[in-house]
């Protein structure tokens, strides 16, 4: 009896595994199990192909693998780009592979350690220097012309370069904004700056959200003043908005790391920075305006007055919470205005088997055509200033705020080779501070740890 069961179980399981469906169709929304394979045409090269004189005619099939993190509308956006590229280069098959977002950062090194890394990958723009330093990225020497570079926000080129050589191809970017519940603010009689020129200070901002929270409380409703996507936020793109702005432009507080990227004492522990940390802790612990732990959908569910998030969040709000009335205000400032420019940039693996073909693809991706193709599916600010007027949502309120911030005072996050390590340790410190840790203990110990880890990058 037992034997029979064992054998039948084995048979059934082999059958189940044996059934492999060849290819999946591409549904509208982002599926977990969709592959995106360009169909191969093996006829003679078309006229458009012959025009590409940069590389010799590519009749042979080239297969590229492109790895992206799941979510964020990336799958849809890049799918559109691939479709457009297929028309130009039919012999290049590009396969998109998605990795769960929370594991993306740890899977990249594993992939690059293996013999068979993906040809093209996405890397957070502030991490490009790190991967370039470690030698896993191919230099992108013919992706941009000088005209292209003039059109792109200069700090972004610097962010994706190491020692003057470009390793990442910026093409879309995101900044942050304060989403606010227009009904709550109107009822409480609190005004909100409507443009980047107006602006508001952090103190002003806190006073205003406090007013709204108290008004709601008088109506018997408990709301948060400020939420982020993750509470407390766990990456420096959010937390450094406050800390850096407590210093003048170019001051150590603003720079948040030494120019050679190895020292943080004298940068993360200036009196201004300490003031910022106190402000941060105050927000969470004393005034309880922000939640110390995850509160999913707080803003969407009208359980929060404001939410600091990025441009694409507007799309999510419209889709998931259609009844919510929201608008966007600029990020508050203290001694300086800070809005972070940050996004995943495409890179080419140095150990990939098709480096030249990958660079060709990146050239298309980062061109105006590529950006516009991406925007057909997912709306993102182009890094090319000339393209902004072509994408309507960014010329009108509320999303105009994001584009304006990018042009006026958008800066990349602190630039250093060891950014991934810096980010992790600094963010952990900010979370600890938000959850009530003693600033005088946790700041020095974090600084010591960061510096001991950054020591390896001393040049």
């Amino acid at each position, binding site marked *: 009896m037992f034997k029979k069961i064992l054998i039948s179980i084995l048979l059934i399981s082999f059958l189940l595994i044996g059934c492999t469906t060849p290819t999946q169709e591409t549904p509208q929304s982002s599926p977990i199990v969709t592959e995106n394979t360009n169909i191969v045409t093996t006829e003679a090269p078309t006229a458009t192909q012959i025009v590409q004189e940069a590389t010799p005619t590519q009749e042979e099939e080239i297969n590229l693998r492109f790895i992206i993190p799941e979510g964020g509308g990336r799958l849809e956006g890049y799918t559109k780009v691939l479709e457009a590229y297929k028309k130009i280069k039919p012999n290049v098959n590009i396969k998109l592979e998605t990795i769960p977002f929370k594991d993306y950062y740890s899977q990249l090194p594993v992939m690059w350690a293996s013999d068979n890394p993906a040809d093209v990958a996405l890397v957070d723009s502030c991490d490009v220097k790190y991967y370039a330093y470690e030698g896993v990225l191919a230099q992108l020497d013919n992706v941009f012309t000088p005209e292209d570079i003039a059109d792109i926000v200069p700090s972004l080129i610097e962010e994706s370069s190491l020692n003057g050589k470009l390793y990442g191809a910026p093409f879309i970017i995101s900044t942050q904004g304060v989403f606010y519940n227009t009904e709550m603010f109107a009822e409480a009689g609190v005004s909100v700056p409507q443009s980047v020129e107006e602006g508001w200070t952090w103190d002003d901002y806190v006073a205003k959200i406090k007013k709204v929270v108290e008004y709601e409380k008088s109506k018997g409703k408990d709301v948060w003043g400020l939420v982020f996507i993750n509470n407390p936020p766990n990456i420096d793109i959010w937390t450094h908005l406050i800390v850096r702005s407590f210093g003048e432009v170019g001051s150590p507080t603003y720079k948040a790391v030494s120019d050679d990227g190895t020292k943080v004492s004298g940068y993360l522990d200036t009196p201004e920075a300490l003031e910022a940390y106190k402000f941060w802790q105050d927000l969470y612990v004393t005034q309880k305006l922000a939640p110390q732990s995850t509160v999913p959908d707080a803003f969407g569910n009208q359980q929060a007055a404001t939410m600091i998030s990025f441009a694409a969040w507007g799309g999510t709000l419209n889709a998931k919470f259609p009844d919510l009335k929201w608008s966007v205000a600029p990020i508050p400032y203290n001694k300086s205005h800070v809005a972070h420019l940050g996004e995943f940039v495409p890179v080419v693996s140095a150990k990939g088997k098709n480096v030249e073909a990958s660079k060709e693809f990146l050239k298309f991706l980062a061109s105006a055509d590529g950006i516009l193709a991406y925007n057909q599916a997912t709306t993102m600010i182009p890094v090319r200033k000339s393209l902004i007027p072509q994408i309507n949502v960014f010329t009108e309120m509320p999303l105009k705020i994001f584009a304006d911030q990018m042009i006026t005072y958008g800066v990349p996050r602190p630039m250093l080779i060891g950014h*991934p390590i810096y980010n992790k340790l600094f963010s952990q410190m900010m979370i600890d501070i938000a959850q009530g840790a003693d600033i005088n203990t946790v700041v020095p110990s974090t600084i010591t740890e960061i510096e001991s880890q950054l020591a390896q990058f001393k040049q």
Partner: protein
Amino acid sequence: MKYINRKSEQYFYAILLILPALTAILIFQIWPIFELVHVSFRNYSMLSGNSKWIGLQNYIHTLHDPLLWRTFYNTIWFIFLKIPAQMIFAFGLALLVQSPNRGIGILRTIILIPAITSMVVISAIWGLMYHPTNGLINSFLELLHLPMQPFLISPKQAMPSIAFMTIWKDVGFNMILYLAGLMGIPSSIYEAAKIDGAGGIQILRYITIPLIKRTTIFILITNLIMAFKVFTPIYLMTGGGPTNSTRVIVLYIYDNAFIYNKMGYASSISIILGIILLIISYFSTKEYS
């Protein structure tokens, strides 16, 4: 204990029987461990592939790394919180669910369900349940007019909270093992004891507990080894915080390998952990036989 004689036949069958498992173990477990030892004597960057021999430097560094000592402390604290409570609870449950009564059978199944649920799923759900203001557990506390607790955001409560969740999950697993052990006790002994007039507690103290000593040790060692290697719930629920209060050894190994790009150092910590666990198991097998 008599063994099967006729040596050559024995050898042939022995090889036949152990070959498949042994091959898999040698290739996929032993070989990586050798690689690990090899890397632990080097400065190895997974990204660049650069590998430089530095001898015992990684090991020496472990002695001077206060954060590593902290992770050992945290891990041992986790073990103290989890194992005694879990084993006592499991033993009690095993005694309770021994009877083949249908209703009890349902309870037995229910207790085992967390054990077979994915740790990823459980961590996600309990993470939400432990929310300091909007969590299910705090809602229950509120109902009982008890103060709401911070749980995962408090350095003092984070580890106990995670330990409690893992007890909830793993107790079923221990319970089965205890059940298996209890079944090995022949009912004749119980009958004899009852005839001699022994009451429930006496039977427990003088008969049951001594007779499952072997099982208990086995469960203890298994739990100990698994607890030293704890990773997933902590990674998913607190990531080592708040203020390093839940940073356990394997999490530190993971951080060193994947974030600080110090594979060599991470490997040396793994080897040290392995040696500690080997020592623990060695002493237990002495106790065992």
